[in-house]
């Protein structure tokens, strides 16, 4: 993985000391809140309902054991012994004291971590496929390009005060696991007919109060033009993006109002000026960054096949875990392990300090010291020999991290919601917990198959409800919580925005409503291989409306 050079080290350390001074001046009263707030936000510090919140960047979701141990230490030393992994592949701490935050950031800096660009109207932490560098279906590893974008965008003076925040995601496979079509810029790494590496470029996707699917404005952008073309997009956005209304300030609104074709034309005009400037990526730089992401040397471990068959036969729970939580690696003797942070009835994305340390131990011993955070709020060990799956599983069981539910109905995404978040209108976590308990039996989950439930506690959609196969949006109606249900959303290569199915449900009724939807699906699917999303796309909303509201739908949202 990427290692800081001297510049990176000095830069991050300087930033910590700047922030230490700013916090000290704030606490002494020298700096007023209005002056301080933008400074703390530039360092990932928010104020939530109960306390400050620190959001730490995990660039493209990649970290090693040493860094994970530091995240555990931060949880223990500055928080209440846990952290929350987010849909942006970051981690949030819910209880740090402002007075101690400079020390926390100084500790993070010792392992090449920081909280820069996790807030504010800048280019945010770049996200990528969590199986990058390991997936069998990958064209190329997206992380070197995510790292190039990170280096280029870090405190970029031209793009530090954009009309609104800006999110870039990169995928290296046809199967999109990075939800690129709901990002401001989505990059799909591919090869052209001559074998050259480049990108299909998508612009103007996003969720929030106005969900939009990104428009493809380039079929193939050569690798060397990554920064010049991205700069061209940013310039068009910076110039024409709306600053009069924060709800209309994202690039998705600009793309929508301008039209993708006209926007692409404007980008091409800028690009023509930038194409052969210093922004052109030199091959040697790409090679140098790519070298940091070279896969570990994976020696043949063919004995794993026989071991695996034997272990699966001997232990049904292990077999179930392998079935759901281990995906094919590009090396046939290896697998990619999803560590579920969705224990049945638990809090999606939360991990204790002890659990983080257990993951670090396992990664160091069995997984080439590589860990990923997925946007689905799980952890990934991207390279594990099949021959080591059994001890990895035992270690995860001991840490309470071996729930066999990756991609199943209890693998629920949920934002912190009204239990923590100052923006939320309703709680997300208790809804996720009740659903998890209702559907938690392994047989029931297996019967239902792949089904993604995503829950947001407000319209900002941090819980990605718009792209949930079943999406739940919490709203406040007359002072009480109400949950609106959307169906048919998806954040993959066939992205779709879920449709509101009808009037919302009170907290005590929403689990029953989801069960009605699930049972309706089970009753109408062609066979068990037709997953919920496919069945919904085939039959449309009506059977679900009928089941939820009666035949004569009085379904006003």
């Amino acid at each position, binding site marked *: 993985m990427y290692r800081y050079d001297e510049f990176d080290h000095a830069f991050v350390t300087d930033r910590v000391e700047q922030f230490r001074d700013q916090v000290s001046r*704030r*606490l002494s009263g020298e700096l007023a809140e209005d002056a301080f707030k933008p400074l703390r936000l530039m360092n990932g510090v928010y104020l939530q*309902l109960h306390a400050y919140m620190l959001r730490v960047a995990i660039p493209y979701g990649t970290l090693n054991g040493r860094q994970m141990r530091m995240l555990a230490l931060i949880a223990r030393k500055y928080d*209440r*012994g846990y952290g929350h992994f987010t849909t942006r592949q970051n981690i949030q701490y819910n209880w740090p004291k402002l*007075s101690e935050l400079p020390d926390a950031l100084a500790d993070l800096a010792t392992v090449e971590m920081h909280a820069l660009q996790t807030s504010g109207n800048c280019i945010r932490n770049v996200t990528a496929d969590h199986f990058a560098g390991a997936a069998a279906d990958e064209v190329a590893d997206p992380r070197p390009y995510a790292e190039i974008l990170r280096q280029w965008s870090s405190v970029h003076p031209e793009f530090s005060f954009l009309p609104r925040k800006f999110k870039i995601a990169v995928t290296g496979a046809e199967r999109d696991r990075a939800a690129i079509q709901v990002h401001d810029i989505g990059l799909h790494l591919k090869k052209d007919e001559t074998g050259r590496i480049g990108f299909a470029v998508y612009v103007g996707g996003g969720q929030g109060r106005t969900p939009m699917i990104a428009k493809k404005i380039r079929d193939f952008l050569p690798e060397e033009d990554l920064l010049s073309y991205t700069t061209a997009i940013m310039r068009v956005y910076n110039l024409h993006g709306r600053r009069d209304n924060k709800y209309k300030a994202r690039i998705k609104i600009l793309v929508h109002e301008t039209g993708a074709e006209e926007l692409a034309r404007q980008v091409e005009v800028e690009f023509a000026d930038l194409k052969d400037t210093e922004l052109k990526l030199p091959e040697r730089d790409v090679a140098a960054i790519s070298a940091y992401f070279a896969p570990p040397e994976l020696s043949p471990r063919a004995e794993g096949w026989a071991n695996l068959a034997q272990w699966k036969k001997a232990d049904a729970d292990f077999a179930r875990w392998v079935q759901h939580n281990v995906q094919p690696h590009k090396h046939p003797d290896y697998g990619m392990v999803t560590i579920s942070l969705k224990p049945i009835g638990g809090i999606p994305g939360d991990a204790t300090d002890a659990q983080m340390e257990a993951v670090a131990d396992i990664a160091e011993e069995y997984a080439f010291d590589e860990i990923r955070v997925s946007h689905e709020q799980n952890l990934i060990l991207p390279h594990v020999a099949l021959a080591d799956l059994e001890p990895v599983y035992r270690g995860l069981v001991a840490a309470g991290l071996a729930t066999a539910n990756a991609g199943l109905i209890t693998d629920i995404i949920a934002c912190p919601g009204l239990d*923590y978040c*100052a923006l939320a209108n309703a*709680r997300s976590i*208790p809804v996720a917990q009740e659903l998890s308990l209702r559907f938690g039996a392994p047989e029931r989950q297996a019967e239902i198959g792949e089904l993604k439930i995503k829950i947001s506690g407000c319209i900002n959609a941090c819980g990605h409800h718009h792209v949930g196969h079943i999406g739940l949006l919490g709203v406040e109606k007359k002072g009480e919580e109400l949950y609106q249900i959307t169906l048919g959303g998806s954040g993959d290569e066939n992205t779709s925005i879920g449709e509101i199915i009808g009037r919302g449900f009170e907290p005590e009724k929403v689990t029953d409503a989801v069960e009605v939807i699930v049972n309706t699906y089970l009753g109408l699917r062609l066979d068990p291989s037709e997953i919920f999303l496919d069945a919904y796309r085939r039959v449309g909303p009506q059977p679900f409306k009928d089941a939820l509201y009666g035949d004569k739908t009085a379904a006003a949202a």
Partner: protein
Amino acid sequence: MADKVLTANRLSDGISVWLDAAGTWNESLQAAFVARHKEAVEALEATGKQAFADNKVVDVNVVDVEEVDGVLRPLRMRERIRAEGPSIPYAAGYTGLTATAPAA
């Protein structure tokens, strides 16, 4: 007019606090001074403004409460959760509805 209390987050650690009758910021809603008429609410607002200007607290708000059997209860769910803590057992040593102190 609904009864009102003054709430904020303490500057140094962000913890939710409520203004009590002695004029100090208390971590318990139940200790809050309750304003029951216009002049009292105006006094709360002025106190809040001053405390913010003095850099003691941030995010200062007057919120509606009701008193039921001697227990103060905010009318909005958001404020109930601020007062009682996350509604979930979120970490070892802390149970739901106890935000500011480890469970005994």
